[in-house]
């Protein structure tokens, strides 16, 4: 997957059910969202690594929606163990039960023909950091 930009690389991995994020070979920082250069050191070479999947809810909201339109849903920002933050949602609990500081674990799901990353509350002893 070298003859394309990091955005296409990210989504190509995801489409193959293989979630990876770039890690800078220069300074070791994980970079998210993917970029052509590392925002920490300016490095331009990356290894695409699989995150552990462990994360913590940094903030959360419930988007209120009529039941007829699909009902309420969660939107959250997740701090990954790799030191980067991503937007996602927490499933497996009521949207309003998602709390700041909650340890969560990533899971890949299909949505509208794309593979995306969502999170579930971590089982005891898993997730978090």
């Amino acid at each position, binding site marked *: 997957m070298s003859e394309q930009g990091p955005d296409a690389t990210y989504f190509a991995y995801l489409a193959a059910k293989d979630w990876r994020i770039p890690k800078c070979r220069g300074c070791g920082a994980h970079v998210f969202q993917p970029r052509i250069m590392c925002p920490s050191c300016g490095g331009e070479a990356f290894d695409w690594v699989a995150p552990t999947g462990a994360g913590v809810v940094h903030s959360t909201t419930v988007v*209120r929606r009529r039941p007829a339109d699909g009902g309420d849903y969660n939107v959250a920002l997740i701090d990954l163990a790799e030191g980067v933050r991503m*937007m996602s949602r927490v499933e497996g609990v009521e949207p309003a039960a998602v709390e700041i500081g909650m340890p969560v674990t990533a899971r890949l799901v299909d949505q509208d023909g*794309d593979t995306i990353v969502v999170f579930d509350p971590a089982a005891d002893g898993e997730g978090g950091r």
Partner: protein
Amino acid sequence: MTWDLRGKTAIVGAATAHLGEAPGYSHMEIAAAAARAALADAGLTLKDVDGLFAVSMHSVFPALTYAEYLGIQPRFSEATIVGGSSAVIQMLHAALALENGQCDVALIVYGSNQRSASGKLHSPSGAENLPYEKPYKLRSPIAGYAMSAARHMHDYGTTREQLAEVAVAARMWAAMNPEAFMRDPLTAADVLGSRLVCDPLTVRDCCLVTDGGGAVVMTRADRARDLRKDPVYLLGCAGGHTHRQYSMMPTLTTTAAVQSGRAAFAMAGLTPAEVDVVQVYDAFTINAVMLLEDLGFCPKGEGGAFVGDGRLRPGGALPFNTYGGGLSCTHPGMLGIFTTIEAVRQLRGECGERQVAGATVGLAHGNGGMFAHESTALLGTGATL
């Protein structure tokens, strides 16, 4: 080195148009009505305008669109799009252009028919592909502000009641503003008891969705003194931004208003304690709390208690959003031009029942995106020069 811009330029005209509901009007007609009124306020005409500073949610070429509509061919044009913050930071750009002789009369103009638009008058705001966030159906912009509110409550103990007080105070000011869209009494219980939109924010924590336009006219200070109204001088103006996508905001509870406020106050040689009237961008109640902190009116984390004691209300220690703000007066998508116009009106003494007696220094703040771009302007009467 920095170029000393303090007091070198002034706002000589300011006006609103079609605030509230304007069915049957296009965004260009609303913007042009505001431009015409602001020029009349200054005693100038469109023929005098040779600098255009345009912003719109409805056009990807706002400078071209509005110049064509107004029938002008300005020698200097720009259309900085940093969301609702645009019109405030455009005052800095206008001051630079004026001082450099790139233009002599600068028109900053905004208009939107977002509330009433339909049929051929509907121009959707530009959609930008944000593939990392799009799958999660962020309800933009409120869901971002809601997550900042949640984090502020978590980190600092800010309460829903304190947030509600921002809306209550705004409504009390709006009650004294004939232009305000919502003027009925509002209580904290009303705010807390209204419909949740994105937790923890209810519909009464959210700004209005209205139509409306606004415009201001600026010239160099020497010319300003010969025009119709007393000049309101630009004493300081600065901006800053931290992200585009909400998930890239470095710290959810701190904005680039730290940077814009510090730089604007430094340019003006003023401190928050010297501000007589503050017009903060209140798209949501949490904005007031965080922006007052970041601008230096209170320490970080104390904004909830700061606003919660009633000081923002009429008669309180900090006259705030005296037109009713985005929460109760108007919010046609981008509010920056309106925080500026109200600051000008207060410094001219034109505010009638809601006038803050003896106001000589006003702060107008713009906020764009989801706490993404922040801009701060300090305005003053001739007494501040």
